[in-house]
């Protein structure tokens, strides 16, 4: 399984210059780490890969996955951890995980395991609103992993987190990537995540070349 981007370009509505232009990229199973300065288009690429945005030019091919952005794809094959608002604020930690598993059609025990691995099992009945930033991010990652997605996208998963939380998250991602042939793409500045990467994409360099 792989994802191939051909001549990918995107310009935000109302913007004068494209954030991505003529990008060619092949993403193989394993962890791919996208690095680059802020605003270079890492997060935009993640949204394009997940079908959350339609490319303005070029195309993305992922023949082994359901149609990108389709409900089937979003429900079963895709999980993404965003920088902000990742969790349903009114639900408990466990309800967040359980709901995600039910939608994806996977056993909820899987969610329990990931929650345990990320050290959030004792907080299962707590309301999400009462958690700290690091705890929320761990729950969001547990929820994403419990779906066993074929495509996992993580947008700055450890930004602003301490070493303790970062190491827990890194360990979970590593375990996930080792146990499946899923594609995991992480957009991050954080050098602490570098050891996870099977492939490290210097986004700034790619963009320079494509220009």
């Amino acid at each position, binding site marked *: 399984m792989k994802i191939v981007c051909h001549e990918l370009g995107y310009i935000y509505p109302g913007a004068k210059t494209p954030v991505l232009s003529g990008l060619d990229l092949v993403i193989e199973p394993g962890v791919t780490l996208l690095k680059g300065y802020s605003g270079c288009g890492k997060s935009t690429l993640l949204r394009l890969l997940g079908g959350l945005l339609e490319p303005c030019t070029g195309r993305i091919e992922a023949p082994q996955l359901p149609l990108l952005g389709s409900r089937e794809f979003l429900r079963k094959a895709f999980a993404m951890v965003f920088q902000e608002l990742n969790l349903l604020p*009114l639900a408990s930690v466990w309800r967040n995980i359980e*709901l995600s598993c039910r939608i994806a059609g996977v056993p909820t025990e899987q969610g329990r395991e990931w929650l345990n691995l990320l050290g959030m099992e004792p907080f299962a009945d707590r309301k999400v609103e009462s958690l700290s930033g690091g705890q929320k991010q761990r729950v969001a990652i547990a929820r994403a992993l419990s779906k066993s997605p074929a495509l996992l996208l993580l947008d700055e998963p450890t930004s602003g987190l301490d070493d303790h939380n970062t190491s827990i998250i890194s360990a979970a991602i590593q375990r996930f990537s080792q146990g499946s042939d899923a594609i995991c793409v992480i957009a991050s500045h954080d050098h602490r995540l570098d050891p996870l990467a099977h492939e490290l994409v210097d986004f700034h360099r790619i963009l320079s070349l494509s220009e």
Partner: protein
Amino acid sequence: MNWWTSIAFYLCRNSFRRWIEQPLGFLSKWAISALIGILGAVMIAGASFLGDEIGRQLASREAMTVTMLEVVPPKQASALLAPDDPEESEWEKLAEDSMTLYQVPAVAKIDEIRDVSIVAMREPERYGFPDAIVLITRSQPEGSTVVARMDTLRVEAIAMPPKGALLEKFVATGELVVGSVKRLSPLMQNGFTRQVLFQAKSIEAIEQAQKVNDTLQAIEHRRVSIRSMLPLLLKLREIRNIQRYVLFAVTIGSALVLGLICGALAWMEFREERYLLALIRSFGVGRVALLVHAVVENCLIAVTGVLLGLAGLAATVSQLNLRAMKLDWLTTQLLFGGGTVWVLVLGGLFGGLLSCVPVGIGLRKPLGLLLK
């Protein structure tokens, strides 16, 4: 529990939380719905009252009574006195009740004291009179006889009260000598006035009679005139049609205003929740499910608001002395009967539905532009 039940449950909880944490939006929608429900009910009641009143006027016997007068000169008299008058049956087609009278240009001297007009009828038996000379009067006992002198003819006339609404109206408080055409034909040779009285079936029937009248005048050059309330009736019919449009416009207008105001409020609420809704969409929950939730929520608020307003109005009306306020036409039946409640509830539903249009548009935005 199915995942979609869980999502629906979560969305409901989220709505309740919003109602509790930000009651202004929810209460505003409710208050606006209630107010529009009250205004709509009063306006519909007013328009219905007007329509009913016009309808009553249109249906009244007085409004539909038509009198056709034709002065028949001596040379045409014999033709119109033929045994079968086809024109009579033509009028009957347009009428619920009709009567043709031939007024003789002479008077009868009753008991050598008073003068009474004479009319001939083609078949007096049809109207409940014997084949004799009859004095239609209310001042003498039925069956008593009087002496009537008509020109050189002296006869005994039987006193009878007027029979039938048309004749009663024609005689009014006076008296009339009635006889068959056969008996009175000697008096009719010098011409007469033919009067057709009829109670029209509808305004269209009066219009038809008017057309016939115009034709008789234009083609046959007959001296026919028609007396009816047609111009007034046509005006009333026009007003009634306008009233129906007003009723329709009030209902649609109320729903539109409700939809626009609630739509603006719903849009503000949606803007606050668009990230959450986008997050739920990113799980693979369709836009339609989220839109259905918004529709149900807004329709529920709008309909309960309208019903609350109507309940408040009913309570207020029952406490007020409407007669003293000269509002006694504003009856409970008029306010809440005749499907008014259903019309307003449907208006509320339409308004609630309309208020979700901005939400529907907002949900079309790509997820990638919302989630950060």
